[in-house]
């Protein structure tokens, strides 16, 4: 402050335009932060690009982060601004003026937050619709089904193992999940006992496995890689060990693999029940509750 502007003794110095200063600070920070969020943080957000669905989820998370960034900078910088400029002066004991209601601020706040929440809801619904559930379990009758050929694969959960059944290949059941690249897969998830959850993180697929329920999810692998399948629902003492591996392979390699499984697992396939979207096998003798 120059000497010509200095307040005379006893005179209250003029308040700067805090609203303008803060708005400029917030705007500049947000403009700097947004490209960083989009180009630096966005690509680091999971689950990666193992499938069309996981790539879509990455995009969605980035969009949400972009929407959240101005709110975050607003809150953080207002806090910092208040700490720096609205400090209690040394020795001062005065409290600030009481503020009781501010219609313009309150109305603006309600409108902006409502619009943001509605925008996120519309965006989320549209993305779920466009991406056929975005890799999530959509129940037995999904609202949207991708067009074109689909490979049906059934995920059967039980305490504490996942097995996989391929109904279009003679109903063969395997302990490894192998999927052909660039092929839309229709995943049917069910359970033989308690509630489990099929979670292939790298593929962006997660669907609850409920006994007696056919939970359908869609995924289109786009990368040749191995992935881990885990149970994401606490399901008993060996829940932590309920995992196995899967692979995305070329269509030719898949054809070879499934043929090998059909041959190797023929004895088991012979005694399997006819393929069904759900199974409720009754325990033979020891099912009576205490």
């Amino acid at each position, binding site marked *: 402050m120059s000497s010509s502007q200095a307040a005379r003794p006893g005179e209250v110095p003029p308040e700067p335009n805090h609203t303008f200063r803060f708005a400029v600070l917030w705007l500049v920070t947000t403009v700097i932060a947004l490209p960083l969020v989009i180009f630096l943080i966005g690509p680091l957000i999971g689950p990666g690009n193992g499938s069309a669905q996981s790539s879509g989820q990455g995009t969605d998370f980035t969009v949400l982060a972009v929407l959240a960034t101005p709110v975050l900078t607003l809150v953080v910088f207002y806090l910092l601004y208040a700490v720096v400029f609205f400090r209690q002066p040394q020795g001062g004991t005065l409290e600030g003026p009481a503020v009781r209601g501010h219609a313009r601020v309150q109305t603006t706040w309600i409108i902006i937050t409502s619009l943001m929440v509605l925008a996120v809801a519309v965006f989320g619904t549209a993305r779920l619709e466009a991406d056929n559930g975005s890799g999530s379990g959509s129940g037995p009758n999904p609202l949207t089904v991708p067009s074109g050929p689909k490979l049906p694969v059934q995920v*059967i959960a*039980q*305490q*504490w*193992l996942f*097995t996989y059944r391929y109904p279009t290949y003679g109903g063969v*059941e395997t*302990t490894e999940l192998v999927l052909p690249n660039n092929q839309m897969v229709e995943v049917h998830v069910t359970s*033989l*006992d*308690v509630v489990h959850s099929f979670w292939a993180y790298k593929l962006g697929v997660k669907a609850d496995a409920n006994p007696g329920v056919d939970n359908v999810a869609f995924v289109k692998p786009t990368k040749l890689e191995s992935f881990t399948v885990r149970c994401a629902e606490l399901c*008993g*003492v*060996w829940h932590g*060990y309920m995992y*196995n591996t899967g692979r995305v392979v070329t269509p030719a390699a898949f054809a070879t693999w499934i043929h090998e499984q059909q041959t*190797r*697992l023929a*004895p*088991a396939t012979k*005694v*399997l*029940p006819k393929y069904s979207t759900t199974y409720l*096998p009754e*325990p*033979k*003798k*020891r*099912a*009576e*509750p*205490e």
Partner: protein
Amino acid sequence: MSLFAKKLLGVSVATALLGALIGLYVAAWATSQPPTISASTAPASSGGNRLTLMTVAAIGPKYSPTHPDWVSYLVRQNGKWIHSTNFSVPAESVIHVTIDQYDSPTGLRNAFLSQVQGTIGGTMSVDGKTVTSIPPEETSHTWVVPQLGIFIPLPGVPEEAKNACEFAPCEGAAHRTVEFSFYSGKKGRYRWQCFVPCAAGFWNGLGGPMQTVGYMDGFLNVV
């Protein structure tokens, strides 16, 4: 020291003592495990190592006073049956396993597990006969190590069999003998379990011994 300070100190010491005791109890409970039994060296004629197991419909009061009616595995060591489901086998070795199965059939919830997998040759022998699978409804228990890809279905003793074993020890009673060999592979700690819902008296046959290490599940330590 003021009265308030004395009270504060007393409450603090009592709280710390109680917390420590609870912590010790939880730690002891969480880390308590049945003993790990090592596979014995197999005769030179077969080579490798040998693991001998038994399955019984009820473990009996001799081996488990707290849960005498629970279904269980036992393991043989130095001619004695030990109540444990933690085994140790050497890595990169052939392991010959014999399981004397004394329980009646319950049936598999997933018939897929009726096929033998992960053994040398993809087979096992039942009472001396080589098989690749057994009827799912005749399965009494399984010995499965999912991470090693080993799936062994164990056939049950027929219901009408005379001299059926009521509870362990069962030697001399009616039983089925299952034998197989597998390659142990890399070092690691692998869990194994029975996949037959065989816990009598529990909801869907799933609780109790099916969820307790020392009965129908445990660890295979490859060392």
